[in-house]
């Protein structure tokens, strides 16, 4: 009996992990693609797929054969015991000795490439160059009238990193604080207009923030908040508050009533209850919202561009500048994507410890 239960548990754990691993592998493929691409030389990226860095079988050129001038390339062409038209040779023909013959270029070249299908090992030309360019600024060169080459270094991410932190840290904590107060108010305090206001907040979730950019910018120009950190925190607070209030409300309203009642009986004020009871109990919800708000700010481009401008470049803006007008520097984009992903992942991992079971466990029994 005990044994079968144990094996039952073991098989359950096997299946649990199996399903998780399958899903995780699926999720990892695109990420792996970016990671590998970020280490590849820029011209290689467009030549073949990123999976070619792994060992694989490939046609490798071993020799070239020139078809003599006497052969009419418009008619049937014979080589290596096979006779075929130009079009067929162009597509490639398997020869009897196991090699493959493929026409090189157009008819005028009169050249066949003989190749063998061989194993190719791990790619050896992976490079850190993309990361170097992203971190220290890419080298920009052009030639002047005298033919001299002018070299300049483009933007680097160092200062932008600091700016991003100055935007994201208060921009994450401020709305959480304000939203937690509001969520508590909506969940546990009675006041006129409570229903209407809450309905409006849910509706505001769907408002595209783009409609607010122009009016807010007008206000900011008048208040001289434009281009200041205060301005962008307020903007991110405003845009993030509906989701924050909504998520935190849903969590805070599930806190058992008995818990609060006993606190009120002990004579605690609303403020005390909020700081000493609600906030500690809401840590998992606060932590999960913190992750999303942090990420949203970290990866935000438009709001930062409009309200902070180019003077206090954030990482996203700096990366966009670095990638250039043509938008074709995919090797830099992938490297930059990885660099800018590190901090959000650290935040996610460090907030993991707040997702623990049993914060409210003791309170439910009563």
């Amino acid at each position, binding site marked *: 009996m005990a044994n079968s239960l144990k094996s039952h548990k073991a098989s359950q754990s096997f299946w649990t992990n199996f399903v998780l691993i399958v899903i995780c592998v699926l999720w990892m493929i695109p990420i792996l693609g970016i990671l590998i691409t970020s280490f590849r030389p820029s011209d290689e990226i467009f030549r073949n797929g990123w999976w070619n860095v792994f060992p694989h079988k490939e046609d490798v050129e071993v020799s070239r054969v020139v078809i003599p001038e006497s052969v009419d390339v418009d008619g049937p062409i014979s080589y290596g015991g096979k006779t075929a038209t130009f079009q067929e040779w162009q597509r490639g023909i398997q020869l009897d000795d196991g090699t493959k013959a493929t026409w090189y270029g157009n008819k005028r070249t009169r050249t066949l490439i003989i190749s063998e299908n061989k194993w190719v090992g791990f790619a050896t030309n992976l490079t850190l160059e993309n990361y170097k360019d992203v971190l220290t600024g890419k080298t920009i060169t052009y030639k002047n009238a005298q033919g001299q080459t002018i070299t300049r270094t483009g933007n680097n991410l160092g200062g932008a990193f600091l700016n991003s932190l100055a935007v994201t840290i208060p921009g994450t904590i401020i709305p959480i604080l304000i939203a937690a*107060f509001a969520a508590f108010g909506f969940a546990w305090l*009675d006041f006129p207009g409570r229903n209407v206001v809450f309905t409006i907040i849910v509706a505001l979730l769907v408002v595209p923030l783009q409609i607010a950019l122009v009016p807010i910018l007008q206000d900011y120009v008048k208040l001289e908040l434009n281009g*200041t950190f205060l301005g962008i925190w307020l903007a991110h607070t405003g845009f993030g508050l509906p989701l924050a209030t909504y998520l935190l409300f849903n969590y805070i309203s*599930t806190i058992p009533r008995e818990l609060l009642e006993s606190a009120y009986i002990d004579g605690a004020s609303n403020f005390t209850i909020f700081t000493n009871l609600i906030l500690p109990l809401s840590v998992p919800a606060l932590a999960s919202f913190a992750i999303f708000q942090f990420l949203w700010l970290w*990866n935000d481009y438009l709001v930062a561009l409009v309200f902070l401008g180019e003077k206090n470049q954030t990482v996203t803006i700096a990366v966009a500048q670095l990638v250039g007008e043509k938008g074709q520097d995919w090797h830099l984009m992938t490297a930059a*994507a990885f660099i800018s992903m590190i901090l959000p992942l650290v935040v996610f991992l460090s907030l993991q410890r707040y997702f623990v079971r049993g914060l409210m466990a003791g309170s*439910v029994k009563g």
Partner: protein
Amino acid sequence: MNISQTKSPGANNPITKILSWFGTAIGQLFVSVLVPAVTFLVLWQGYLFLQRAAAPQIVQVLVAIVWGVGGVALLYVVTNWLVMKLPKKISKTLQPFVFVGPAVVIMGWFLAVPVVRSLVASFRNYLGTEWVGLENYKFAFTDPRMLETFRNNLLWMVFGTFFSVAFGLLIATLADRSKAEVLYKSIIFTPYALSFVGAGVIWKFIYTYKGTGIGIREIGLLNAVVTALGGTPQPWLNLTPWNNFFLIVIMIWLQTGYAMVILSSAIKGVPAELLEAARIDGANEFKIFFSIIVPYIKGTLLTVTTTIVIFSLKTFDIVRVMTGGNNGTNVIANEFYLQSFTYNNAGRASAIAIVLLLLVTPVIINNVRSFNQQRRGF
């Protein structure tokens, strides 16, 4: 953060003793002015410091962080302190507003007022100079481009939301039982941490199509797989209407992490005693999942579903980066973006924004109903 000490008169510490000196009428008066004034002065100095931007960047950033976060906390403490000084009856009426007031004011300023402005603009022409009646709404509800976006958004809403929530719930539940929980969750979460510019590049590498012809090698993963299996490469993102599903896959890839994090924190809230009791009663894991976990996290499920439905309605960067809305993949928010920033048609853009608001009405009604059930004010 132990504010209650400085505030409650009963506490027996030096600060309260000094404060009690202010117990006289003049002291009261003095303090009531002094405290907000000092608070304000400190905040104002910080603001000036930041505006001057003369200090080294790192110092500025540190001051900015302390000033911003501390300032907001300070404002709450001071306002609450002031309100608590009022007669009990008034203070009881006013206190809820101390809690919800700032949030409501800020949301009003940053979102509600712009919505009202949009509502007005939606009845005016593209420059906002003349009234045009319902002309913009006629466009929003009858133009073939808009009808296409409605169909596509419905697909996004149904399939995108369902699979994001389902995968999120599955992973959150399973990972909860696994020793490698953090690893699994981190992997699923990673896409969410990527900037979309980076994510867009990689999905292009998955769907890309180089064409057919001599010597052309596919660099797109999907086409490489198809070719390896003996098929012909396809221009995936141009295959109407299937291309919509290829885009929705990207949304699921991104949003599952979100659903997982929120649901996971809710699952952590399911009391272990309940689960243990059920296991001792011999319930199998499926039964536990459906009869204990799901009912327990019902509220959170609604929250997650609501936010993802809304996300799927607002989605536009995936479409903009991957297809630009061509070949039958346009969505409402992309059309909104085009109208406001590319065509500079403020009237139509506003009408589309208002239509978006109308579309979520059922979602809002559903939420308010559940809000009323949870109503429990003191």
